[in-house]
């Protein structure tokens, strides 16, 4: 029998003769000659980090941090366009009527050339959010969306964008984005504008949100020019329905119905045509008020929206802002309707001189802090769309952030990201440790303060205790007080504030109640907070404050259950207290 040597590469032992030979030789040859017996064992995957991958560059400007692997010109141009688009949006919505955040927006700009390096599930999600070549994504032919994934916490936003790594041709600036190509103009998506409106506190009146988003569908940006396409009223069938069935007697809804709608703004109205008419007329009113730069009605509109955010809209309030009553407004809108069927446009003021946005090589800490925090934020998406991958994503985000920590980074942002990651994944002990440190370091986002307060409250209440002692109450309230000094105001913070007082034997002072009532006014569409604050007001003997916030909430109740709950409170608890 010829000598049998183990094959240099894998080959199946196909014949019994070779197997027998192998068994016989096993006793004679050194261990290397043994055939492996038993099942194949799986080793954990080895992750190999590439050498010479994308070089990350970092730059920051007020309100913006950029981590980019595109060339500096592309990054700078993109940041500049982002600033400019914000200025253009301010022409449509006064800046103070948009979400304000103490933390800068973070953008990760990724060169399309490295697209293959992105996890397929992230690219899938980008395509789902922003199908690049699908005009239906924007509703505008020839306008696409830059592939991106925007991950917003209640207090901050991080956006991952895929860019063509080339400086745009300035000679074509102002033209529309060619489908499937690079970008030439940058416009905020309606979804992003909605986020800016929804994050504003006090919450905007529903008619303004609905009307502005309806109007934004018709807005185009051409260089510094803002163009609003001819107003499209409802389809004829909708108009007939309104005139005949609801007997409004005209094409337009009465102004009182716009500003204090009986329609349900959340889309659950039993008569969708009525909701469409309400949104369309709100858009018509905003368009009438905007009417070009410098028009006095623009400032009146901003004043009215500010006031209607803080108290139910009334005709007196409207008259104080516009110098008109509702009847005169109805006449003016009816007269304006034919004019609205032509394009409205005006020139935005020139871009202000901005400091040069410089970029430098990102430090390892900057890369890991930003990418690790992005890894934390993406967990919600992965958990929803790819739950089988969630554990791996959690591990990677944690390792990325811990690597930065191990390299000596003790920035408040990193500590907060670590705390929030552990908070999200249910590790309360580690979460609290990092959140305590982040708060001590003065992190500029309010959410870590709120999460720390929540952990302190949970810890203080424990499984068996239902009341907070004075010291425990103080420990819970302290981070909430600090959070109120940051933007944006957070609903969970105020809900926690109400919960802390509800679990305390101590009675809130006037200033404590004022903080809670402020929260109820900021978030008057949240009935849970409004009713909790009103209840504490009543217990403190202040029914007028309770009446005020319930009335404000009733004027903008987003859905039928909210409206019913508020009416029940009004008819029950509030009625019993008398005047």
């Amino acid at each position: 029998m010829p000598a049998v040597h183990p094959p240099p590469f894998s080959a199946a032992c196909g014949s019994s003769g070779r197997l027998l030979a192998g068994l016989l030789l096993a006793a004679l040859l050194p261990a290397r000659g043994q055939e492996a017996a038993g099942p194949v064992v799986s080793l954990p995957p080895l992750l190999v980090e590439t050498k010479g991958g994308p070089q990350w560059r970092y730059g920051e400007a007020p309100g913006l941090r950029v981590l980019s692997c595109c060339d500096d010109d592309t990054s700078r141009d993109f940041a500049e366009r982002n600033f400019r688009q914000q200025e253009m949006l301010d022409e449509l919505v006064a800046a103070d009527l948009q979400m304000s955040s103490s933390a800068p927006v973070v953008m990760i700009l990724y060169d399309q050339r490295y697209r293959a390096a992105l996890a397929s599930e992230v690219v899938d999600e980008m395509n789902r959010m922003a199908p690049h070549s699908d005009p239906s994504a924007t509703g505008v032919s020839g306008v696409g969306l830059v592939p991106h994934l925007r991950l917003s916490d209640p207090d901050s936003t991080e956006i991952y964008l895929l860019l063509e790594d080339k400086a745009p041709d300035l000679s074509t600036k102002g033209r529309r984005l060619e489908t499937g190509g690079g970008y030439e103009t940058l416009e905020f998506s309606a979804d992003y504008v909605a986020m800016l409106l929804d994050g504003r506190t006090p919450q905007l009146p529903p008619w303004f949100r609905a009307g502005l988003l309806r109007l934004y569908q018709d807005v185009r940006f051409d260089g510094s020019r803002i163009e609003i396409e001819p107003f499209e009223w409802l389809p004829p069938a909708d108009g007939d329905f309104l005139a005949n069935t609801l007997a409004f007697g005209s094409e337009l809804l009465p102004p009182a119905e716009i500003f204090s709608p009986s329609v349900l703004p959340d889309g659950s109205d039993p008569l969708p045509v009525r909701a469409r008419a309400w949104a369309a007329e709100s858009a018509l009113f905003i368009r009438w008020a905007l009417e070009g730069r410098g028009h006095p009605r623009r400032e009146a509109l901003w004043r009215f929206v500010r006031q209607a955010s803080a108290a139910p809209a009334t005709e007196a309030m409207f008259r104080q802002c516009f110098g008109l009553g509702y009847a005169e407004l109805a006449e003016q809108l009816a007269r304006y309707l034919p004019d609205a069927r032509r394009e409205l446009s005006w020139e935005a003021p020139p871009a202000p001189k901005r400091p040069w946005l410089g970029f430098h090589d990102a430090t390892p800490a900057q890369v890991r802090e930003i990418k690790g925090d992005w890894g934390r934020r993406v967990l919600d998406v992965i958990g929803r769309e790819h739950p089988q991958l969630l554990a791996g994503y959690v591990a990677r985000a944690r390792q990325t952030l811990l690597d930065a920590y191990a390299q000596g980074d003790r920035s408040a942002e990193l500590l907060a990201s670590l705390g929030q990651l552990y908070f999200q994944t249910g590790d309360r002990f580690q979460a609290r440790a990092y959140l305590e440190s982040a708060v001590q370091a003065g992190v500029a986002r309010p959410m870590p303060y709120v999460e720390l307060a929540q952990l302190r409250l949970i810890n203080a209440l424990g499984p068996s205790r239902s009341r907070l002692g004075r010291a425990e109450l103080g420990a819970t309230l302290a981070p909430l007080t600090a959070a109120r000094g940051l933007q944006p105001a957070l609903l969970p913070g105020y809900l926690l504030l109400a919960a802390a007082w509800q679990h305390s034997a101590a009675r809130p002072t006037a200033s404590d109640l004022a903080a809670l009532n402020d929260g109820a006014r900021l978030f008057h569409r949240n009935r849970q907070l409004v009713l909790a604050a009103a209840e504490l007001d009543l217990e403190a003997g202040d029914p007028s404050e309770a009446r005020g916030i319930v009335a404000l909430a009733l004027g903008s109740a987003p859905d039928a259950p909210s409206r019913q709950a508020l009416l029940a409170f009004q008819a029950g608890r509030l009625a019993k207290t008398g005047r």
Partner: protein
Amino acid sequence: MKASQLAVLLSLGSLLPIAALAKTPEQSYLESCQRSPDVPVPVAVYSPQVGPEYIGDTVTLEFNVDANGEPYDFSVKSSPDSTLATSVVAAVKRWQFKPALREGVPVATRVVLPVRIIDGDRLGARYAAN
């Protein structure tokens, strides 16, 4: 000491050991492997040098670990190309294992190893030199 203060001190104390977590990818990998006696356990691993064009790719190897803990008899089950496969096999051939035991005796074992190429952020020598 009040409970809340105590909790804060404990929490801060818990942060201190984390500074020792700086590990090479190879060290992290060694720690991730199970220590069961019936499977071979890597005790020395080497990563291949891979360029960024392979980010996102995976090479799957199958090989034997003999009774001395030496890898041999490599088979490439999947790879985007032979260049990457060659580089990965060359690195893994240098690995050393604690062999699997059966009734206390070292035995050869067939193993499968996925190697995934990820974006290393270029955090290596460039910054070490800074």
